[in-house]
């Protein structure tokens, strides 16, 4: 049922984009009108000026959504659903002739032969001047110099027009004329080219894990596809073309012999270990440059003139044939373009790392589907759902087994007949280990719940232990001076710096993360409760003394409520810091949680999932904060008014 929504997402996006544009323009119109109307009776700097103005909110939100649609190529895909496929065919052609283009100054400034000549000559000079004379004999030195001079000579031989083999000249001529034929064919247009049935049956752009299907679905695409097939045959011929000549071959042969002689000496002779290593390294460096030269990839300076002209013309022909696609490419596909990989074409640039809004929603719905068998959830766990939790598991989690060991009596033994009769201690142990079935209770489950659960438990522990300690530190010299150094020493360490250690000690499951978060929450709670307690006005404490309150009563009924604003602010800060730390800790290690999902998504480069987790985290953090703000406003209405 929902597959219709998925397949028609381009159309739905188009409708949404138009609606957004309408919202954007209409609210700007209203906003401008309202501003003009209000200008008369408003005072600049009046706090009331910042209230209301929903139309600007709509303008802001819709402009962000439109920017998102634009940079994620959502607009391009929505209104020009075939553009991606056509760009894919062009990418095919460009990929097919890429090896030829690479030798020409088309995307670079120099011919590849020029670059090779320059670089290798420079490196040969450096090798010659840095020869370590102490580790080679006089004869070896002169041999090495000869090898380097030979290498230079090889460059010279290949660069000379006279030495170029007739065969390679003929090959290059043939390739140039073939490419010119391709350009002519492109210029003839794509009338009569028809996509195959197979191609039309392919999924739409972006609806499956294949981003852009390979086979051409438009006439223009079919033309580019067929040209690209011919181009790859031409490229194969080109790659076989070598600038071999007799003069070059003789030089190469003799140099090769000299190098292998030197290498043989290195093997047979008895050198000190460190000298041997240096000898080998130098000979290897010389050989490496020689090997770059002996394969005949350096051509004379004018050898590629014809080819250069033909390829440049081919690119012009591509541009001419592109037609309207050129405009779409420039306007609606910002960033790099489409590139072709083995099985599909993929978006590059912002189209790649910024998934389209519709795709993010689809990814979220898949993740939120509680039915794991049907492909929902992630890595064997739902996003946010519930399950039946056996009560026994809960008891096993709460009661430590060691407590049963402390009970009087011994565990049972097997009898003479080889039977085992369990006694009361065995039975209690089974209970503590969660082996006795006691029925089940419904319990929340899923990645989000796992993350929230960790934060909640850590917060409860941190508040339960941190607030009393903080209050005592606020009123007692002993508590303040005894605990202050301990807390002040561990608190400034960024929580994540503790993570590797804590996760090693307590394990990568809930225990380790809860302890890490507890440390964070505890320090914040202690400090905020202490500030609140020590900030109690002396007159209030004196008044309560005069009213007959004991020290305990003053702590409970005066100092604690007085510290409440600071404590609640502390809780609010703790939630924020815990949430941030937790996500990072889950990325470090673990098998569930929202940070875990993002980490796996990062490893497999699933940008849609990364954005989904980012949005979930942001929304949850916002929800926590709004909740705390509500609680603060309800619990301590006197704040700032006392």
């Amino acid at each position: 049922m929902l597959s219709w929504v998925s397949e028609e997402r381009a159309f739905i996006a188009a409708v949404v984009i138009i609606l957004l544009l309408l919202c954007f323009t209409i609210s700007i119109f209203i906003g401008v009108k309202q501003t003009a109307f209000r200008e008369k009776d408003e005072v600049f700097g009046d706090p009331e000026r910042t209230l209301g103005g929903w139309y600007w909110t709509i303008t802001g939100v819709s402009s962000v959504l439109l920017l998102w649609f634009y940079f994620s190529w959502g607009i391009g895909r929505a209104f020009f659903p075939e553009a991606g496929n056509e760009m894919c065919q062009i990418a095919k052609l460009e990929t097919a002739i890429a090896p030829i283009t690479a030798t020409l100054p088309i995307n670079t400034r120099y011919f590849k032969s020029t670059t090779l000549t320059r670089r290798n000559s420079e490196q040969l000079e450096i090798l010659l001047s840095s020869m370590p004379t102490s580790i080679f004999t006089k004869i070896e030195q002169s041999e090495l110099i000869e090898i380097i001079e030979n290498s230079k000579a090889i460059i010279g031989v290949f660069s000379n027009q006279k030495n170029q083999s007739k065969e390679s000249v003929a090959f290059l001529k043939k390739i140039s004329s073939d490419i010119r034929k391709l350009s002519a064919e492109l210029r003839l247009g794509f009338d009569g080219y028809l996509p195959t049935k197979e191609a039309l049956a392919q999924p739409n752009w972006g609806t499956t894990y294949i981003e852009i299907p390979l086979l051409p679905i438009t006439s223009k695409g079919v033309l580019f596809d067929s040209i690209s097939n011919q181009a790859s045959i031409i490229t194969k011929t080109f790659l076989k073309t070598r600038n071999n000549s007799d003069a070059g071959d003789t030089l190469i042969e003799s140099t090769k012999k000299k190098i292998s002689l030197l290498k043989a000496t290195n093997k047979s002779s008895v050198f000190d270990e460190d000298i041997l290593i240096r000898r080998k390294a130098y000979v290897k460096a010389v050989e490496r440059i020689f090997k770059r030269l002996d394969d005949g990839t350096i051509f004379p300076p004018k050898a590629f003139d014809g080819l250069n002209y033909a390829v440049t013309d081919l690119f012009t022909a591509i541009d001419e044939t592109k037609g309207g696609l050129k405009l779409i490419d420039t306007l609606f596909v910002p960033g790099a373009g489409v590139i072709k990989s083995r099985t599909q074409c993929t978006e590059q640039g912002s189209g790649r790392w910024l998934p389209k809004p519709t795709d993010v929603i689809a990814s979220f719905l898949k993740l939120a589907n509680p039915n794991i068998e049907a492909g929902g959830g992630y890595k064997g766990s739902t996003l946010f759902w519930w399950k039946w939790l056996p009560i026994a598991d809960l008891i096993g989690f709460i009661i430590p087994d060691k407590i049963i060991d402390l009970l009087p009596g011994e565990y049972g033994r097997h009898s003479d007949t080889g039977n085992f009769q369990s006694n009361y201690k065995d039975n209690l142990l089974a209970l503590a280990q969660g082996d006795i079935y006691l029925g089940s209770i419904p319990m929340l489950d899923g990645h989000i719940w796992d993350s929230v659960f960790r934060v909640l438990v850590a917060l409860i522990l941190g508040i339960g232990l941190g607030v009393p300690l903080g209050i005592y530190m606020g009123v007692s010299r002993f508590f303040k001076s005894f605990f202050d150094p301990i807390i002040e020493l561990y608190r400034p360490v960024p929580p994540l710096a503790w993570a590797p250690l804590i996760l090693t000690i307590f394990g990568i499951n809930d225990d380790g993360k809860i302890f890490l978060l507890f440390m964070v929450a505890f320090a914040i709670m202690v400090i905020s409760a202490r500030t609140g307690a020590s900030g109690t006005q002396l007159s209030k404490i004196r008044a309560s003394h005069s009213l007959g309150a004991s020290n305990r009563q003053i702590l409970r009924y005066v100092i604690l409520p007085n510290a409440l604003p600071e404590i609640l602010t502390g809780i609010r800060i703790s939630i924020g810091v815990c949430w941030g730390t937790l996500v990072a800790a889950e990325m470090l290690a673990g098998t569930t949680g929202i940070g875990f999902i993002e980490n796996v998504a990062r490893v497999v480069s699933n940008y849609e999932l990364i954005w989904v987790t980012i949005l979930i985290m942001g929304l949850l953090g916002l929800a926590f904060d709004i909740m705390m703000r509500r609680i603060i406003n309800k619990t301590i209405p006197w704040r700032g008014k006392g």
Partner: protein
Amino acid sequence: MSDLICKNLNMTFTNPQTGSKIEALKDINFSLKKGELLSVLGPSGCGKTTLLNMIAGFLNPTAGSMSLGGNLIEGPSVERGMVFQQGALFEWLTVSKNVDFGLRMKKTPKAEAKKLVDKWLNIVGLQGFGDTPTYQLSGGMQQRVALARCLVNDPDVILMDEPLGALDALTREKMQSLILELWKETGKTILIITHSVEEALLLGERLFVMAPRPGRIHKEYKLPFAEEGLTKPLREIKHDTRFGDVREEILSMIWDMEEEIMGGA
């Protein structure tokens, strides 16, 4: 009888950094009979508040002793109720919960406590404000709550540390009448510290003028104005020539002391 007796009170503060000593109070002797109304006046730094804090039991004298009704004063107690300048109310509690505080600490039965609270709220003129949060009250009303909170505990002595200092003139006058009324109706011993000469004259059967360096009782007056204030409007008393004479005398006395301090400094 439950008289408040102070014998040879001395208070010396030592500066923990320099070790230098300041004599805040020196040889204070006085006794206050039950039901007496005493106001204490003096330039700033003369030890008025120190004296009050010592009687309240918040500070221990370096020498001398204090007793109330024959019992030595060694710490804060319900017998000696205290009203502070800013009220020192518990802003997280409502008006009646504030008044109820002392009773709750004593674990008084709820029904009885409620009766007492209602009674005292009526007396201080706050009927119907029981459920109002204290931070919503005006300054005068807050001081009324502070008075009720103190009186509900039925203390023998009420100590007031500049209780009306933060109020505007009109509210102040109303509160002065209220204090006089309470004094008459309850018959409590009341000790008021103030920096307003007029207030000291109006709210003191007896009046101590204190002098600084070292803090001591410079002069004692016995005044009729508090008694008169129970029947006559306070504004009328202020226009009395006797009132004016004493006020001028005390003002010039304090003026001289201030001059002396400034000259010496």
